[in-house]
């Protein structure tokens, strides 16, 4: 594998799973039962869907790199250390570093709705979050089936800021992926990404089946009171 090349993958909307509405309600802070959602509220989201038709871009850039192990610690193409990442990457010989975005138009739409309807802004924000997660899911799914062919498996994705994986790693990931040139994602001084609905993450590649303990992406997070926290899988 050529470690030096950053590949770009762009998806058509039809390749991404359709919106998962229960995620929209979860991201927008609705924790009740789905049948409690009023018609008016549902209509508001329908309007958002209509008005954002075609504005999402589904772009990913990625790089596949080898990982050397020394004294039980992985040597990674960035300086920061993270125990939770090391745990995830146990027995991995390679990683995929990637960045994904659904584009800037989402931010523009949200900003516009902030001035017109804060409710629709909230729903659009949730929609953007759901879309970028769906894009990442799709990309990881594809990587998984591709690597299946090589007799390899992948871990779940892990992003700077998760567990003890420092947010500062963002700078190095941006250096590795040339995200701005490849898919138009940039990093600002506070390590926030623009467009805001963008993700950077790392996946491990190994020759064995992955551990179940990492399947729940909330399991490594220290914020136990988070309203968005997914229940532990037992």
């Amino acid at each position, binding site marked *: 594998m050529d470690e030096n090349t950053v590949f770009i993958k762009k998806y058509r909307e039809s390749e991404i799973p359709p919106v998962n509405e229960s995620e929209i309600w979860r991201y927008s*802070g*609705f924790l009740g039962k789905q049948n409690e959602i*009023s018609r008016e509220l549902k209509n508001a989201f329908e309007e958002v869907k209509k008005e954002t038709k075609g504005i999402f871009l589904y772009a990913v850039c990625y790089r596949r790199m080898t990982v050397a192990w020394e004294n039980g610690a992985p040597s990674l193409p960035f300086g920061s250390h993270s125990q939770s990442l090391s745990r995830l990457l146990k027995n991995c010989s390679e990683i995929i570093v990637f960045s994904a975005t659904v584009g800037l138009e989402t931010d523009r739409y949200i900003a*516009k709705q902030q001035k017109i309807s*804060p409710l629709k802004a909230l729903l659009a924000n949730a929609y953007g979050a759901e879309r970028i997660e769906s894009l990442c899911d799709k990309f990881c799914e594809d990587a998984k089936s591709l690597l299946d062919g090589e007799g390899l498996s992948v871990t779940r994705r892990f992003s700077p800021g998760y567990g003890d994986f420092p947010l500062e790693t963002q700078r190095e990931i941006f250096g590795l992926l040339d995200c701005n040139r490849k898919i138009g994602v940039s990093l600002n001084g506070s*390590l*926030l990404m623009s467009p805001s609905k963008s993700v950077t993450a790392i996946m491990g590649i190994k020759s064995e089946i992955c551990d179940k303990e990492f399947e729940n992406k909330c399991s490594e997070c220290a914020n136990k009171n988070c309203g968005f926290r997914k229940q532990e899988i037992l």
Partner: protein
Amino acid sequence: MTVLDYMKNNLVCLDGGMGTILQKNGLMPGELPERRNITHPEQIIDIHRRYFDAGSNVINTNTFGANCLKFNGSELEDIIKSAVENAKKARELSAGAQPKFIALDIGPLGRLLKPYGDFDFEEAVECYAKTVKIGAKYGADLIFIETMNDSLDTKAAVLASKTYADLPIFVSNAYGEDGKLMTGATPAAMVAMLEGLGVDAVGANCSLGPAQLAGVVKEYLKYSSLPVILKPNAGLPKSVDGQTVYDVKPNEFSNIMMKYVNDGIRIFGGCCGTDPEYISATVQKVKNISPKQISDKNITMVSSYTHAVEFKDSPVLIGERINPTGKKMFKEALRNNDIDYVLNEGLKQQEKGVHILDVNVGLPEIDEKETLQRVCFELQAIIDLPLQIDTSDVQAMEATLRRYNGKPMINSVNGKEESMRAIFPLVKKYGGLVVCLTLDENGIPETAEKRVEIAKKIINTAKAYGISKKDLIFDSLAMTVSADNKSACTALETLNIIKNELKCHTLLGVSNVSFGLPHRDILNGAFFTLALENGLSAAIMNPDSNEMMKSYYSFKALKGLDRNCADFIENIEKYARPQFDAVKSAPAEDAAPCAESELQRAIVKGLKEKASAITELLLEKAEPLDIVNSQIIPALDIVGKSFENKTTYLPQLLMSAEAASSAFEKIKLKIKENPSNTVSKGKFVLATVKGDIHDIGKNIVKLIMENYGFEVYDLGKDVPPEKIVDEVLRTKTKLVGLSALMTTTVPAMADTIRLLREKAPDVKVIVGGAVLTQEYADSIGAHFYAKDAMETVRYSLNLVESGESNE
């Protein structure tokens, strides 16, 4: 011979990829390729020389990322110096007999500019300026700005190049499959802006292979009056047996490039994945093509950050509502820094279908330069229409033109020497379509003949400044017919001559014609139709006027400008009914006798229209303050309590808040009639702290606080501590809300609190945001940590009741 001389009669061949060749030569992951100018000069010289040998006329120095964000001062200078020297050595070594030039290569800084990023426009200009100065000092022949994926960033690089070097400027942008830049601009929009800025060549590079850029090439050749550049990738990289290969080979690449050169591309080369083979193959295939002459397309257009608006046959509507003249509420909004009010005027007009927004914020008691800049900046964050910058303050004009994202309209210049001396240099520097008033030192001439004379004088003077006729649009000045019943005729005659004999575009502020007369709308609509028939290109108008909109759609349908009358059919219905009927009919439906509890119910259920209609009805017999206290607040409390009990959630809370807001709109209007009334519970300054650009949570707090009667001064996002303190002192506010989303921006929150405690010690600070906790809040010295909007309200109301937040 300069590259510009050579370009006049010759095709110009550029170089191909640099980065992809360096990778083959062992560039390590994370290694900055620009350092190789110093560490491996022989490699760089060799690559350049091979391009010259392959037939390149212009090679780009290895400085794509050589900017002050990546390298410090002395290293930056060393890198650019060696880069230029390497290129010069390659030129000496090459056996190629063609004229050879060295371009200082400039790529994007990689930071997104405000409002969607945090990088300031002027900071970007300064960064580019450093690179430009060094490149010019060491003898580059031209500047090649490339792979830019944002229009405003492109503008920053061009301004730096124009200001700090006297070299030809080529500009090339990176388009996606959708034919747009990452941030949305189309080729036409880029051509409009870059021609306005006075660059020497424009075009596209990188991101796609030559075949996928067909649409982009077509657009460039259609709109550009400048030589067009094309420098595509060798297709897309693919991994084959562990090797990276690009899927378009030299033969295919050069065949497609040859076709484009036949179509009119004048400057060609390759980007990622191409090498000297691609270049020599292309040179061989185009060597016998005689270059297509470059002609002025004579297209008049302006642009926003997404698209261009062309002045052609179909009339252009310029919304006039962002203007304080004669508008009490608008003036008050400007004085209170209430930008949202102004933005709303923009949104409403966009909704009504105008193509351009006029922006005038001239009011004697405000800082016009500051306000005009801010309003245009905020408008460009949420509205993608081009703007017409309307001010008589030349400094305000320049400051706003400088940061405008696109090519704006400039309102205005006139036949006075002084006016032309002030405005034309700005047009030359920043680009723009200028509104030219046909008046001069002697006032407005009474005859068409004399107005046309002034127009001619303006055209000639503009020409002397290097501004072409296509960038002038003439206002033949419609004065009211109530004072002079020949005035409409004179304006029409003038515009007819300017359009048909001087071949210039024309514009009118249509509604002036009816000043002082009853039912002005009717006269305006008729005059508009007459003016259009006489050759009017654009109208500055009120899109709320049914008569104007009727004229517009009718004219287009009647003149064959509306295919199948589709626009007419789609839009005319809403203008067909008399205006005041439409307004009156809404509340009638809800004229239920038990409206009082109905209002509460409407708010609790989050029914916006209903809440507004019921409030209007209630206001006929009840006092506004009573409605607030006995209806709206109790309704909000019901929702607020169930939100706190977790039986209602955020989206529902917001729905109710929006319904309450729509009720408040009506209440406020009523209160304006009797200014001694007030619903204010107190003042509240609100901001997302410096470095943070997330503001959804902050805006929710704003909405709910307003619902409960607080006067909210919203400073927006990414707000520095000083600005927050200034606003607190200016408005004499005792309560401040700060929001931060990221751990990395909490320190900015701490700084803000420190400064507030120093300069405004009796202020109480509420903090909130995703990463905050009670411990965090305590450690940075906040008075209160609110986990949501309702907690902010409760705390604030408690302070009000205990009298602590009073002035």
